[in-house]
């Protein structure tokens, strides 16, 4: 079809057709394979973007980049400005201040007609799918191609490919109302990919789906990202979504970026309070009987409760066994889990020590502090059963 870059030439600031860039190769006649890295790197570069609606400040001085082939997750609570931010990336919303560069071109000052050409190469999927009810699945998927002026014969072939990609070949002539939520979102994804976008935007794409369907949609997005080298920006309020698919994460709070980094880093060592709270719900919770009995200071007959996290290679060390051997204490495991985030292991344990007395409690703390990634003294609780 066409090269990944042929729609936009940043040098001449003009749209060129059918001039393949040095990073694309032709395979099997018409098909173009997009290589994941293109010199110049960033597909999206957002600089000092602010946006207010009347007196409400939705975004405040937001700056970040998205590299080619990367999946960036943007997470935040309701009203944090996530939707506003993602809508700035395809010009559905104009920022009050700042730059939004797509493939090196600031789209903020572009007139509507030019913006439409840019949008033709940015796919978007939505929480409520937004499929056209009067069109069949195939017609929905073909629409971006129709808008891009692709002849109908070519459209047909491409639609078949896309439906095969999302596993819905048998639903081509069905109307969307006959589909399940997961199937609708698959159509949404096929439609968003139709015009071979350089960037895919996902606004709460899995928030209306059940957990199982959510995983299958996330797996599909991950697969597309790997196979096509497609750059994806997805916003969500679910930490789990970010953990499953994103490479990098931005935490947004009241329109500001409060934390940014690789997902495994943010997960294993969250810095911002909000991030810790968002992750907190994900890792182990104490049984409520213990949590309500927690006190700050030791008294005779109470147990010390600690939470420790081990990340990366430390997660493979038998820290608790070593502790048992070296200090001759017997930790009781109240809760434990090992998760993998981007191939980084993250082990976390909640353990109790029987009536240790203050000197021993201090020694346990010191011993562990040097060996684990994160140590939290939760307190003392009345003798456990």
């Amino acid at each position: 079809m066409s090269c990944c870059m042929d729609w936009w030439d940043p040098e001449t600031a003009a749209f060129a057709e059918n001039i393949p860039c040095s990073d694309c190769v032709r395979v099997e006649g018409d098909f173009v394979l997009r290589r994941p890295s293109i010199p110049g790197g960033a597909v999206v570069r957002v600089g000092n973007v602010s946006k207010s609606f009347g007196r409400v400040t939705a975004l405040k001085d937001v700056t970040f980049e998205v590299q080619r082939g990367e999946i960036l997750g943007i997470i935040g609570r309701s009203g944090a400005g996530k939707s506003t931010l993602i809508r700035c990336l395809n010009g559905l919303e104009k920022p009050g201040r700042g730059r939004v560069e797509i493939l090196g071109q600031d789209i903020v000052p572009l007139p509507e007609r030019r913006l439409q050409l840019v949008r033709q190469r940015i796919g978007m999927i939505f929480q409520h799918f937004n499929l056209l009810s009067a069109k069949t699945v195939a017609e929905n998927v073909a629409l971006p191609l129709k808008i891009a002026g692709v002849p109908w014969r070519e459209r047909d072939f491409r639609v078949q490919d896309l439906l095969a990609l999302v596993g819905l070949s048998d639903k081509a002539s069905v109307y969307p109302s006959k589909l399940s939520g997961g199937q609708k979102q698959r159509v949404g994804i096929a439609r968003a990919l139709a015009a071979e976008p350089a960037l895919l935007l996902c606004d709460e794409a899995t928030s209306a789906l059940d957990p199982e369907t959510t995983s299958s949609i996330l797996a599909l997005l991950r697969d597309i990202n790997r196979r096509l080298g497609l750059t994806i920006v997805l916003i969500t309020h679910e930490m789990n979504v970010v953990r499953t698919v994103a490479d990098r994460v931005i935490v947004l709070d009241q329109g500001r970026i409060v934390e940014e980094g690789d997902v495994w880093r943010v997960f294993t060592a969250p810095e911002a309070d909000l991030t810790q709270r968002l992750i907190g719900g994900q890792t182990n919770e104490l049984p409520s009987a213990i949590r309500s009995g927690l006190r700050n200071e030791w008294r005779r007959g109470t147990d010390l409760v600690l939470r420790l996290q081990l990340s990366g290679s430390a997660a493979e060390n038998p820290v608790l066994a070593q502790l048992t051997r070296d200090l001759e204490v017997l930790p009781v495991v109240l809760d434990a889990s090992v998760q993998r985030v981007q191939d980084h292991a993250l082990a976390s344990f909640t353990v109790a020590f029987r009536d240790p007395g203050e000197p021993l409690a201090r020694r346990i703390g010191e011993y562990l502090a040097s060996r684990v990634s994160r140590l939290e003294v939760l307190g003392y609780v009345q003798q456990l059963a």
Partner: protein
Amino acid sequence: MYSNWPDLFARALLETLEMTAAAGAIAFVAGLPLGLILVATAPGGIRELRWLNRILGAIVNAFRAVPFIVLLVALIPLTRLIAGTSIGTEAAIVPLAIGATPYYARIAEVSLRDVDYGLIEAVKSMGGSRWTIVREVLVPEALPGLLAGFTVTIVTMIGASAMAGAIGAGGLGDLAIRYGYQRFNTGIMVGVVIVLIALVSIVQFGGDRLARRFDHR
């Protein structure tokens, strides 16, 4: 007089059909774009233009406020200008169409405004122009409502065309008034009512089926 009553009915029915069909076609062709402009120029529409929205809204309201019988008389000079005469079936098409257009525009506006804004955003995000949004989203998505609304308009026009008898337009209504009411011929009166009921039922039935055929929601 009694001997040719089937002829009388056939002619009146034909005149009614001619008036409603012609004026209905005009109302659809003019009312739908008017409805589209009303929706597009409204606050938050795809081409916000408040002054135009206000002016068109006021004109539509003005026409809708005037009783049809008054409109019929008030438009006589215009009718004469367009149709060459102010009397007869063809002449009645002018005021009927002018009365029905704002009526249908409002009905179309309501259907078009009900289209989920998310769908408009989706097509916008694909790089669709305003025209694409009208063609691919607004009209197809609102089509069941547009057709149902058109059925209502036609039924209303069948009723209104009876008043056009006042300017010698003929039709079923005219038949009922001249023979049934003025000459106390109850048979003809009842006959007209039965034909009207049948006509309205057929139009409504056909319209409902058509609307349902295009409804995939």
